[in-house]
């Protein structure tokens, strides 16, 4: 009982993943099917959370919005994490001109406010989740590069890096096999942070009409329209906000567990 409770982040995260993956198979209504006759209908057996301003099923729209939010957040964070960490490790390990090049180019990206950069890209390439992912990834590359770079600087002076060089290991092997595992902790923390911020940024952009396009469901879009009908149907605003908060909480807590799990000092299992 207690051990299951202790590992609630992983359990909840798996639930959310399963929910997102299985959305098309679940016995829920079509999130796009409108029914003007039952606008703002209160919860019923058929529609447990009620219907929105077009009579669409709120529950099913929440599930599909969750699916798109998780897809965008995870792929953007993975993409920026991979590129950013690689640049940071290479820069921190090679020093010299490479370091200047990698770190300064990140400073250039950091000059642009993230929202502005996203709006620029959306104006150029049009809105939609396929633009959103590379743009969000680009926005968060510098944060990974900086975290990786700073961690490499402390790890590279450790004697076990010298020991690996002394064994005849090449630069690539040292970066991948010796340094990377030892800086994984801060990178995973950064990853969880980026996932959470990506979810917020994606809903913000969608809220502004620059992200996911209507009628496709998105948490940001739902909050945007819910705001307009706040007086008639306050729950239309409350449900997507609750899901958004839960999602961010679960992502953070899960990444915390992930970091502990990668640490060999941590006792695997239920703890003690």
């Amino acid at each position, binding site marked *: 009982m207690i051990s299951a409770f202790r590992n609630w982040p992983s359990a909840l995260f798996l639930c959310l993943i399963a929910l997102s993956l299985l959305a098309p198979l679940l016995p829920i209504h079509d999130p796009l099917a409108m029914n003007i006759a039952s606008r703002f209908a209160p919860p019923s057996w058929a529609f447990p959370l009620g219907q929105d301003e077009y009579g669409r099923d709120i529950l099913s729209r929440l599930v599909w919005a969750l699916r798109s939010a998780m897809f965008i957040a995870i792929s953007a964070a993975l993409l920026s994490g991979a590129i950013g960490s690689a640049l940071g490790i290479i820069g921190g390990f090679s020093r010299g001109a490479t370091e200047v090049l990698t770190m300064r180019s990140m400073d250039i990206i950091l000059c642009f406010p993230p929202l502005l950069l996203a709006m620029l890209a959306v104006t150029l390439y049009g809105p939609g989740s396929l633009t959103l992912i590379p743009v969000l990834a680009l926005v968060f590359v510098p944060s990974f590069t900086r975290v990786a770079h700073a961690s490499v600087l402390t790890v590279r002076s450790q*004697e*076990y890096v010298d*020991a690996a*060089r*002394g*064994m005849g*290991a090449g630069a690539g092997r040292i970066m991948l096999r010796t340094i990377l595992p030892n800086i994984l902790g801060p990178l995973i923390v950064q990853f969880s942070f980026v996932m959470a911020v990506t979810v917020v940024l994606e809903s913000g952009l969608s809220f502004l009409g620059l992200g996911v396009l209507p009628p496709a469901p998105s948490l940001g879009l739902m909050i945007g329209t819910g705001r307009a009908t706040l007086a008639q149907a306050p729950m239309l605003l409350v449900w997507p906000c609750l899901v958004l908060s839960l999602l961010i909480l679960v992502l953070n807590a899960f990444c915390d567990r992930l970091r502990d799990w990668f640490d060999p*000092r941590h006792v695997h299992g239920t703890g003690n």
Partner: protein
Amino acid sequence: MLTVPARSAAPSGPILAVSNLTVSLKRGDAWNAVVRNLNFEIAAGETLAIVGESGSGKSVTALSTMQLLPRGISRIEGSIKLAGRELLGLPETEMVKIRGNDMAMIFQEPMTSLNPVMPIGDQIAESIRFHRGVTQAQARADALRLMERVRIPDAKRRYGQFPYQFSGGMRQRVMIAIALACKPALLIADEPTTALDVTIQAQVLSLIKELQEEEGMAVLFITHDMGVVAEVADRTLVMYRGDQIETGTTAEVFARPAQPYTRALLSAVPQLGSMREHAKPHPFPIFDIATGEAALERELPDIRQKQAPPLLDVKGLSVRFDIRSSLLRRVTTRVHAVENVSFNLARGETLAIVGESGCGKSTMGRVIAGLRKPSSGHVELDGRDLAGLSQHELSRHVQMVFQDPFASLNPRLTVGKAIQEPLQIHHLSSPKERVEIAADLLQRVGLSPEVAQRYPHEFSGGQRQRICIARALALQPGMLVADEAVSALDVSVKAQVVNLLMDLQQELKLGIVFISHDMAVVERISHRVAVMYLGEIVEIGERAEVFGNPRHPYTRRLLDAVPMPDPARRHYRRNLTGDGELRSPLKPRGFVPPQRHYEEIKPGHLVQVPGPEWA
């Protein structure tokens, strides 16, 4: 019962009285007793040394006395009385007044215990003002007087300097000055000289001793070094895993140890001069901690291949580091880390390189292991120039064992994987064979093959160093560079690891370059010795020659400074002034090193003709 020494005229009882002290630390939900039922007293003018290996609870005892253990996770029971006043249970505000005023502490690391952005003099003056509430001018005058008392030369000029401008020994003097600012009745010194070079250690210990005689302080001295104990302590308390094993006058404890553990501990201490009768390296006798009995001594045959061409041949090696100005990035000064050094090493031979910190011995080790490129000169391995070899090729022939066994193993690799890593890098043998080789190597260094699945943090320092040695042997190199490989280990473990290296040398005909500052260990392990000073070799020769007939003034100074683990042979001269500090290897651009000449005392025993600075 303790009798107060005659020289303390104070009528009252002991300065510090500790009875039934038990200290527990919280780990998870459980309380672990790390010090159990400790009893001791220190009178005015007396020095009590608490000795023990790491984990024996000696530092915890010191911190409990100062009440510096974090509250909440520590629990102190029993009684600690300072001049008759019970300290346990005093509120923090009272303790703040007592700390510094009535008792003061000096710590191991003089590098980190000073505020780096505050002038030295002000740091001393601050402590005086805080505790005595005198005016700024008065505090400044007192601080200057204190700096003179701890023999900091040129105190007026150095008052405004910052910690980075002070050497380690000088910083420790500053710490002592701060500790003495309010004339405490009790001084607690927690490994105050462990981070210092031997010649500096000798000066600092003499200084503490003399100040104690002047002030009549009680001194609680915490150390792991039996040599230091023998030099400074009136009485000795031996601790082992939290228990008080033995207490008595230092002379008695050393001459007639009552407990087997004390006997084992004392006999494991490397003693300089114990090898006079042996010309060749000789393993340490290993004593059983439970019984205090020695294992049988054995002789090792001489396996040096002196006739064959040398395994390692170093000719005219120099390493310099450029230091650039911060603005124009121009080279302004150079560190002459290694300067025109030549020597060779035969197969099956151990050459020790000794010297104090900053003498270039580690840099030289790294050049030989290929981790650093020389500025000029040649290193030949088996007749092949190192410059023509890639690190990949070189690593098959030379491997390194590093100083810090806690930093030289990748914490993310299991021990088995760590030992297999070199084989994997060189694509040698199949994965299944690698597991077998790792198991075999673990057995060879005295560990069970079952531990291969565990991570480095689960091992003690000595076990980790064994693992590092196993890893270094995985590629079957002909040569090992051991850079201070046993310096971080406890005495009994140190002896075992040194013996292990000797046994492996016998089996595998290894050539070993053994870099160390510990003269007593060097005396045991090496066939030949090279003494380095400021990047140059000042004396090199057979070990028995260099130790028995030291010719260079620096070699003599180094040997004189080694503390003797024998209270009957206290030999520290009263050499208190700060001269004898190491000079800097930092030289201006365009500096031309002087031409050195060597004199041959006996075949193979070369001594640099001392320059005018030694006159």
